[in-house]
């Protein structure tokens, strides 16, 4: 994948964090809006799944960028990217499971 695609997704993830994060905040802090949002638990779970995905992508890509700059060797660059991707997927899987348990889906 080209670096521009990765970085474009990084910016898209930032926007998604803002939108889904706002929905999450409203759902847990405003009783009226919160009740409306949580009326459909599947949609709320979907929002949280997107929030978690965007958050992890943005955070882990940030870590990848820092590591690439600190260890600029091209061989290491490839390994860093793969390692971060695997750690990210595992973290997302664990996070999603926690979310599903917390929201009563499992």
């Amino acid at each position: 994948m080209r670096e521009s695609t990765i970085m474009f997704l990084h910016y898209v993830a930032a926007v998604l964090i803002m939108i889904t994060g706002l929905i999450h905040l409203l759902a847990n802090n405003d009783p009226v809006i919160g009740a409306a949002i949580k009326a459909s638990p599947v949609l709320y779970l979907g929002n949280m799944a997107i929030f978690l995905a965007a958050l992890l992508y943005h955070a882990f890509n940030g870590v990848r960028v820092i590591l690439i700059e600190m260890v600029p060797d091209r061989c290491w660059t490839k390994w860093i990217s793969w390692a971060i991707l695997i750690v990210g997927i595992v973290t997302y899987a664990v996070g999603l499971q926690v979310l599903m348990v917390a929201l009563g889906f499992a």
Partner: protein
Amino acid sequence: MASEEAKEYVLPPEVLEETVKASEELWKPVRKIKFRIYKYNPRKDYAPHWEEHELEVSRGMTVLDALLIIKGETDHSLGIRYSCRMGLCGSCAMMINGKQMLACQTRVLEAAGSGDVVELRPLDNFPVERDLAADFTSFFEKHRAVKPWIIRNDEVELNNPTGPYKQTVDEYARYYQFTDCIKCGACLSACPTAATDYEYLGPQALAQAYRYIVDTRDDGLDVRIPIVDTEHGCWRCHFAASCSDVCPRGVDPAQGIQLLKKLLIKRKFGLKPHKPAEALPAKVKAEKEG
């Protein structure tokens, strides 16, 4: 005719006298300044050290003038790089009191300010060649990597041009400022990313890539994208803008990099940066024949 006109023009005596007086004033020693100079020959020395030289400086004296006096009178072994002495070649860029500057364009008193010490060391983020001269090998490799020349698809026209290419003022204005780059290395030296990421192409090379990509005469977008759109390409710029801050020519490489990023994103949605320029005479000829 021209020589007659030249002969006729003589400075009025009072103006001449004033000019001579001002010049004398400019070059009259006014202050003693201590020069703290970095000395290191990687082939001989175990570690770098500092040497101090004291000099009577005048208002008009540049750092390069002072260095040449020091080299001529007190330290013949001093390694410096210079050429044009007028801020055009970019050879004499160095750290003057901690900031990237051209030695030939910086007056000693301006650098010293209210203090009496001027500290000189080679450019940061560059290996040392000797004393104040930095090794530019990697810098020029990065510059060459972005193919800083016009690339055309129509090879017949390129090799046998039928005339000048059409370009409007607006099209020229898009890349004009980047043509002012003198490759002094000040931008790369000031770049915080380049300080850790030695593979990073750097502000100079990336701004030059942008300069050629947006040139309507150029068709090399697809050739340059695999070079600039990499892990160590334009996306590693975090827009500290220190490159633009130190550029002695007033070029804004940070802006060039941001525009390059924008161009790459726009390309994702199928938007091309420009229409390729046409070779006018060939087109006119073809239209006439058609």
